[in-house]
């Protein structure tokens, strides 16, 4: 499944994931291409979040879980013993469903990722903070109030702040888990614009419940059901001429 001969950024091979005895991912094999947006769609509970969270090993912190199969980023196994999970998460950023800024100032929210990596130079930090906020299309709105608490922002602004925060550590991949489900339509449009723009520099994987959103922002779409990958193809193909009956039923709204 690589017609344009794109570079593969992420590859999951025969991925199984268990929460205790509950098998949430079943033999998922998929490739996400470099500097493309890959959307993951599927009915609630089908394992979208579980899948996307395996990519930066966020599931590691949940006790009683088990993963089988392989995930390769740039061809390297992210579960290899010499892989530092902290370093992996720096390379694979994540934006969550609900905006989750820290209870700190706008500035400190973004500087956090830099400071934990040992950056001390104030000028440099200020520079990156501005660049990240610009990158998340938030700079103009907050440049005069960088010391205000992040909670003083609107929900949509908070979500863009979280995106800026993720950008600040210069990841290669950004994972979005339903980034727009807790914000209003106008804010959603802004975040979508942003994602469109981000793919010039980053590989993006986005989970969404919103079919139009998947169609609008993504280049490739994966349809999952009950922990299995049902179909994966170019987004146009999935939305105009899906190969699988289940996919067709889902995107035409016959279930889900």
């Amino acid at each position: 499944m690589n017609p344009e001969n794109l570079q593969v950024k992420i590859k999951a091979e025969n991925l199984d994931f268990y929460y205790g005895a509950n098998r949430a991912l079943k033999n998922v094999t998929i490739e996400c291409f470099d500097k493309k947006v890959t959307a993951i769609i599927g009915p609630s509970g089908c394992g979208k979040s579980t899948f996307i969270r395996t990519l930066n090993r966020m599931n590691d912190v949940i006790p009683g879980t088990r993963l089988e199969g392989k995930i390769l980023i740039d061809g390297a196994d992210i579960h290899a013993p010499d892989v530092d999970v902290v370093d992996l998460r720096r390379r694979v950023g994540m934006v969550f469903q609900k905006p989750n800024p820290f209870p700190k100032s706008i500035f400190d929210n973004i500087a956090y990722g830099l400071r934990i990596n040992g950056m001390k130079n104030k000028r440099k930090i200020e520079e990156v903070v501005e660049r990240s906020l610009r990158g998340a299309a938030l700079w103009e709105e907050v440049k005069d109030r960088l010391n205000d608490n992040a909670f003083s922002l609107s929900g949509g602004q908070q979500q863009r702040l979280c995106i800026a925060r993720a950008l600040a550590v210069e990841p290669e991949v950004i994972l979005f888990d339903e980034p727009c489900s807790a914000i209003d339509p106008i804010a959603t449009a802004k975040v979508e614009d942003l994602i469109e723009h981000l793919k010039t520099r980053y590989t993006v994987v986005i989970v969404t419940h919103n079919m139009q959103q998947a169609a609008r922002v993504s280049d490739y779409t994966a349809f999952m059901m009950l922990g299995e990958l049902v179909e994966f193809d170019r987004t146009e193909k999935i939305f105009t001429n899906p190969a699988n009956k289940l996919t067709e039923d889902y995107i035409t709204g016959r279930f889900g």
Partner: protein
Amino acid sequence: MRKTRWTNVRESAIRAFFFTCGILTVLVLLGIFATLVATAVPAFRDITPSEFLLKTNWDPTSPEKAEYGILSMVVSTLMVTGGALLLAVPIGIGVASYLSDVAHWRVREILKPVVEILAGIPSVVVGFLGIVLFGPLIAKVFHTGHGLNAANGSVLLAIMALPTIISISEDALSAVPAAYGEASLALGASRWQTLVRVKLPAGLSGIIAATMLGMGRAIGETMTVLMATGNARSFPHGFLESVRTMTSGIAIELGEVPYYTTHYYALFAIGLVLFVMTFAVNMAADVVLRKYQEKER
């Protein structure tokens, strides 16, 4: 129509009840304060306040010249309490962090009740520990004749303040939204960085409250320090000296003092000073908390 009126009456009755409860606590507090002031003030017919607060000699029964300086006792109280906090706060925050962040849920299930049992140990028993266990230990380690000194009191008060500090800090840390931790980890922070830079600051108000409550527990504790600190009346120059705190001073002498003498009133004046000190601690905690919460908003 009728029913509404009845509901209204009931509403206001309930409101009046809760209002009374609220007022009652304030009244009790005021009552204690008033009694304390009324019984303490006569002491200052014979003692000047500056003499009382700044002199170090306390010898009300001296045949030549009775002396009423409480500075030694105040300093002793501050030393023993400060030492206790120095021990209990880091350990308490450490244990709370461990319980909320690291421990397997089964370990937590066992440890939390243990901590609560610790809180229920009577102070006499803790004081006993000081005499038979920590005292000899301190004497051995530091080569002092006996171990009944400020250090011993600090250790014991730390033990007594720990459960409060642990359980309230743990509540504060557990109340920190999981989303903060996830956000931090997802940015490539280690668990340690996440704890120190995100979770502890987010739970700070609770941790400060825990510390203040622990301090309140320590500063007013009587029996333990009475048993374990040696009760020497001299001005303390170090943690290895015997000390007499304000609480033990009152407890030792109040039973034997003739009523309505200057000595008697002076003991209440010590109580008043102690009251003001704890009050100040609580006010300070309140100010800190409020400032912090404002920043958070």
